[in-house]
Structure formats: structure tokens, C-alpha cells
């Protein structure tokens, strides 16, 4: 069976400008959304605060819960439904008091719903200090992983390849973050984990294409780099699409069957796999070409 017949010859390099324009547009929209929303919708991991997940025997309305919370001054907290007959309550408060917010919530709900009609299944309290620590660590982890990739690819290939690869990764991360902002989805620790996974995964496709470019450059020294790149992308196209497809498949499974706790994580991966595959084809390799125009490689100059 074959999805993509051999001998395809799409002109990827020729469409580079259109692709770059599209990417830029998406990036700008994402950035604008972040500015519009006044920053990302940080979860308690980064912003600090309290999250309580409660499962009810029968589905309660958010208003009823809100009413129950008036007595403990939590009526302005964020109440979201979470899976079936579950709600997640989020407040900015991170009380260090030993009984804590979950105890108060338990009391307030018991008063309204009775003792055994609900179950507190998850409590997360993150103080502001931890939040700012985690933010710093998250940014460092992402930046350092970019640098790590840059060094590895520069070592295994050439510096201009590394630049293309990293720009594609930065592109993937920014777009994924932008999508999260557009949908106003909560941005927490697991999303950063997803971003790092995307960084590790997206570069795979890129490397496969680069590998082929390198092979073809050696084989046909006379061919122009643009043609070589185009041929290489076409030759590896089937494989790029296929492996992205298998990963996409399992991520879709995670998204639908993995449960509410990792729902957003799976969503981030979903976006990342699609964007990552696109960037390997349309962004990473053309950048190598652009670099070549500015500064020809040794191979060409020595000729």
C-alpha cells in the first residue's frame, strides 16, 4: 500500500515564500491574541493559586456551586466542568493555612449538598514563590533545549542546517503557544512538557530531510541546492507523512481516551505534531537555502 506514490515532485522550494507568509501570519495572530488577552492564561502552576477537583453524584449547576461558595468568599472563583459530573474550581488564592481552601470548600459543599454527595478528588495549591520558580525553569528548559539541538545539529551537519532546524522549532513553539492563547486554554506545566516533546519530535522530521539533502548534495554536486533540497523533500515525503501519521494517531487516542487530566497536554501535542510536520517540510529546509544565498558553503565555494 502507498499513500504517496514514489516520484512525487512538488515544488516545495518554489512555494517557500507563500509558506513563510502563512507562518508569519499565524505567528502574528497568535502574538496579537496573547497581547489581547493580556498574557497567557496561566494555570496555577505558574500563576499560583488553588485548584480543587470535585466529583458529584449528580451534575450540579455552576450557579448552585457558586451560591454555596458565597459563605466562604469564593463566589468569584473560576468554576469549570471537567469530564462528566465533575467540576474544577480555581482561585488565585494560595492559603498557607493548614486546613486550607479544600477544607473550607468541603464544609461549604457539605452544608448545601450533604456529606456523601460529592468527593474531592484532587487538590493543588501552588504558592506564588513556586509559581515564579517554575516559570523561570520552564523558560530555561525550552531555551536550553533549543541550544542543545543547535549544537547537536551543527556538530552532525553544518551550522546553516542547525539554524534552519532551530528556527523551525522556535516557529513550532510560538505557533502552539499562540493556538493556546487563541482558544484561551490554560497554560500549565504539562503544556511546557508538551512543548519540549514537540521540540524533540519536530526536529526528527527535519533531520530526516537534512540527512537526505546531505546525501544528495554529495551525489549530485552539479545540481543546484534549490533542486537538491526540493528533490530531498520529495524523496522523504512519504516517510515524513507516515511517521507523523502514526504519532498523530496515538496522540488522537490520548486526546479522546486519556482522560480530562491530560486532555490539554494531548491537545498541545496534536497541534505540535501538525505544525512540526509542516515546518520540517516548508520552513526548515528553505531556510538552509536562504542561508546559502547569503553565505555559500565551503563545498560550493571550493568549486
Amino acid at each position: 500500500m502507498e499513500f504517496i506514490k514514489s516520484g512525487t515532485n512538488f515544488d516545495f522550494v518554489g512555494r517557500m515564500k507563500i509558506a513563510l507568509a502563512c507562518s508569519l501570519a499565524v505567528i502574528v495572530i497568535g502574538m496579537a491574541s496573547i497581547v489581547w488577552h493580556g498574557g497567557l492564561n496561566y494555570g496555577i502552576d505558574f500563576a499560583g493559586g488553588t485548584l480543587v477537583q470535585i466529583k458529584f453524584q449528580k451534575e450540579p449547576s455552576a450557579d448552585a456551586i457558586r451560591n454555596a461558595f458565597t459563605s466562604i468568599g469564593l463566589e468569584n472563583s473560576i468554576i469549570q466542568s471537567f469530564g462528566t459530573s465533575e467540576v474544577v474550581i480555581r482561585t488565585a488564592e494560595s492559603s498557607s493555612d493548614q486546613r486550607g481552601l479544600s477544607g473550607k470548600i468541603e464544609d461549604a459543599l457539605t452544608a448545601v449538598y450533604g456529606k456523601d454527595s460529592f468527593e474531592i478528588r484532587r487538590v493543588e495549591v501552588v504558592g506564588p514563590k513556586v509559581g515564579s520558580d517554575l516559570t523561570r525553569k520552564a523558560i530555561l528548559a525550552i531555551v536550553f533545549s533549543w541550544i542543545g539541538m543547535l549544537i547537536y545539529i551543527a556538530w552532525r551537519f553544518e551550522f546553516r542546517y542547525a539554524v534552519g532546524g532551530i528556527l523551525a522549532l522556535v516557529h513550532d513553539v510560538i505557533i502552539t503557544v499562540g493556538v493556546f492563547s487563541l482558544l484561551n486554554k490554560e497554560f500549565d506545566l504539562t503544556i511546557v512538557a508538551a512543548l519540549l516533546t514537540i521540540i524533540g519530535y519536530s526536529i526528527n522530521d527535519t533531520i530526516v530531510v537534512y540527512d537526505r539533502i546531505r546525501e544528495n548534495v554529495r551525489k549530485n554536486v552539479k545540481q543546484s541546492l534549490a533542486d537538491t533540497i526540493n528533490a530531498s523533500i520529495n524523496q522523504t515525503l512519504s516517510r515524513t507523512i507516515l511517521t507523523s501519521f502514526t504519532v498523530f494517531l496515538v496522540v488522537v487516542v490520548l486526546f479522546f481516551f486519556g482522560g480530562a487530566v491530560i486532555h490539554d497536554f494531548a491537545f498541545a501535542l496534536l497541534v505540535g505534531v501538525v505544525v512540526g510536520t509542516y515546518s520540517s517540510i516548508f520552513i526548515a529546509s528553505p531556510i538552509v537555502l536562504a542561508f546559502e544565498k547569503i553565505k555559500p558553503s565551503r563545498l560550493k565555494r571550493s568549486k
Partner: protein
Amino acid sequence: MLKGIKVRAAIAIVVSLAGLFFLTPSLTADLPDVWKKYLPADKIHLGLDLQGGTHLVLEVDTDKAAESTLERMSNEIKETLMTNKVRFLYLEGTKKARTISFELPDSASKTAFEKVLKDNYPDLEIVSSETRGGKEVVALKIKTKRAEELKKMVVEQSLETIRNRVDQFGISEPEIIPQGEDRIVVQLPGIKDTTRAKNLIGKTALLEFKLVDEEHSIENALKGIVPEGSSIVYESRLDRQTGRRTSTPLLLKNKTLLTGGYLESAQVKIGDRFAEPYVAIKFNPQGAKEFDRITGENVKKRLAIVLDGTVHSAPVIQERISGGDAQITGQFTMDEAKDLAIVLRAGALPAPVTILEERTVGPSLGQDSIDKGLWSTIIGGLLVMLFMMVYYRLSGIVANAALVINIIIILGTLAAFKATLTLPGIAGIVLTIGMAVDANVLIFERIREELRTGKTPRAAIETGYSKAFLTILDSNVTTLIAALFLFGFGTGPVKGFAVTLSIGIIVSMFTAVFVTRIIFDYFIWDRKIKSVSV
């Protein structure tokens, strides 16, 4: 050629069986006893998000510890100066800069002061010394290196104390580890009453015995005329009829006569009169001697038992108490009394701790997550396998076999290395399923390409593997680099993801490349096959 295949096959089988060996105990509990004897006892360790439990991050207030050390030192210096007959005036130091200051009337006193300092307090150094209106003012602080050591010691002691408390509380497999400079991570699997655990861990539990100041009236003190050397402390009382807590102010002398540091044991006992629990404490020999002296000197006076700044009771000393036994009453519930006994036995924390982060997952949510994770793995695995079979036919089946072995080895490795499996960790395994076939897709696509150029099946397989290998290596190394940063950055559950992803990638190099190659080689080694089912 055949010999090579046999050796490689043997390696593959041994590794796979090793994986299965470590994995088996996690799969089922009812194994025949004969098996149990030889199989490892460890199951895959589940993270708190899967088995339920509480994860706490505590911060030790080392500043507070430094403050009280300085305060204690300044008291000691005052006494030493007095015994050495050095004239001085103690000036309040600045708490922020952590200094203490003394004013000395003349240079002779200053020389004497410096000598006292040099002989007795090597940990202190002079920060500034100036002449103010003919008088010498000297500011002191703890040497930076020593302060660092103290800080470290305080954190270590806190860790040890918390470990003692948790051990006595009876939680199976708790984990208490330091994090960074002044933080402690406490993991309590399967804990039900989080509030009680937090109370137990977070309590400073500083037990002090102080005399009630009976020469001055509490009324005046409350009006703002607090006599020198005394201060107001509140006594907390539970009214048994109404169930309400009341707090009554008491005027206590500042001097601490005895602390919980001199305790030998603390036990819960039940009182005769109201059948209410109290905590019986026993001092060690040194403490007993002190207690004997204190009670002997202060008969008919009230001695307050203060725990973390709250008076628990302030009974009148009826007679000298020898033997070192005392009791702390204060209308406790049974659990409160039990926990108090635990914290007293384990000792006071050298500095207050605050809870910076708390993550609690109930057991039912954990089980839900396990179920969902399992289903995701099964469905994801089946879909990928189905796809590989349809797309690559027989070769796809070979890749699928490798995939199954891959999962067995991943889980076996987790069990063998006592790594923790978390929900994101399961996601990592699911993701590995999708990525592991990546290597096979690369190889198979390459084989197809080579076949198209008219190569024989054997040559195509040969080239397919050799050309794809470096690519596979490169792409896997980059994923590993990302996983490495993920591991460094993440907290518990995310770390679990990094772990399974890393193991999965490394194992996939073995199964998807090494193992599948053996199968291919076996089928082509002696035959003149005309086609490859790829």
C-alpha cells in the same frame, strides 16, 4: 552468516525475557509460590497521581533560624560580659541586616569586649565599630561561612525531624527529600487525612516551660503596660459543653526554663476523671534534674506549658517533682493527642516551615487515570499495529512484533530500576508506540526505494538498514536531548513522562532496528527470495 544471526537472536531473546522477568510481578498478584520465589518482588512503582496521595513542598524559614541563633548568642554574650565585669550597653541590632550592637563606655571596655569576643565567640565578627560621642559602638554579625553552615544544618535537621514524624505516623513508603537550598519535598502515598498530615509535618512543636508572672497584673499588661522581662501569651481552652475554643491571656516571664529538647519520651494516656486523652512526657536525666530544680524553687507558683507560642496549661506547682515525669493536658481529641506525642518525640523543628506547594490526588481519581491510561495504550497500540500491517504487510507484522517487545522491555525496565510510572508517563509510552515505528517506517520506505531502483531484495534490505540507521540515530538523539531537559525541569508527573519517553526511545533503537533486522536476515539468509513483502 547463520552463526551471526543465532548470536543476535540469542541476545534479543535474553533481553526480552529479562524485561518479562522484571515485569511479571506487576502484571498479576497471584502467581504460583514457586514463581514468586525466583521473580523479583518489586512491582512497577506508581506515582502519586496514579495511586493517590499527597505531594508537599515545604520551605524552611532559615532566616528565622538565623535570627533566633543570633538572639541566643547575644544573650550569651551579655552574660559572659557580666561575668567578666565588662561595662556595656546592649543596643537592639537591626533584624534585617542580622547584626547586634553593643555600646561600650570607653576604649578599655572595648579592648576587654574584643577579648571576650575573640576567646568565646569565634563565629562572630565585627561589622562596624565607631565612636559616637566618646562612646564606642560595635556591631556584630555571624561570619558568612558559618551562617551558611548553620543554614544547611537547619535544613538537614528539619528534614530529619520531619522524617521521624512521618515514620511514626505510619505511612508506607513516604519519600522525604531535600530540594534546592531550603526546600523539602514530602511525598505521602495513599494518605487519607491530608489536613492531619499537614498539621503533623508543619508544626514547629517548640515546647517551652515558662513561669507565670504573678507579681504583675495581666489587666495592666493588656492596657499596654507590659513589665520588663514578661510578655502576654494566650491560653487556648476548649469548652467541653459548647465545643468552642476560648483564649485567655496570661502574663508569662520571657525566660524559658526548659524546652522539649530535654524530652526522652512522650505518650498518649487516658485521664481517670473525664476519660480524656493527655500526653505524658518523660524528661531525660539532664532534663529531669533541671525539672526537679525548677519545681523545687517555684512551689506554689504557676508553670506554663507553652507549645508553639500557645499556652496549653498553666498548673500550680504543688510540690517538687523528681523523676522527670510530667503531663500535658489541654482537652485534646484522641488524634490530636497522638499527633502531639509524635511531634514531641520526634523533636521540634529548628525553624518554622511553610507549605509552598500541595498536590493531592484522591485514590478514585488515581484509579480512573490508570484505567484511562491503560485503554489509551491498548487502543493506540492496536491502531498503530493495524496500520503497519495494512501498509507494510509482512514487514509490518515484523515491526509489530518489535513494538510488543518494546513495550515489554519499557515496563520491565521501569520495574527493574524502580522508576515511577505517572499518568504523563503512560502518555509517554503511548507516544513511544507512535514514535518507535518511526524507525521501521524509515527503514521500510528506504527498502522500497532501493527496490524501485532494481536492487535484489537482499541488497535492498541491506542498504535500507545501513542508510536509515544514521538518520534514526540522529533523530532519536535529538528527542533524547529534549527529554533530558524535560527531566531536569519537571516535577513528579512530568519527570515520569521524560523517563518513559527516554526509555522508550532507547529501547526502540534496539527493537525496531536490531530485532527486526534479525528476522529479516533469518528469512533471506539461505533463500533466493524474489520479493519482499513491504
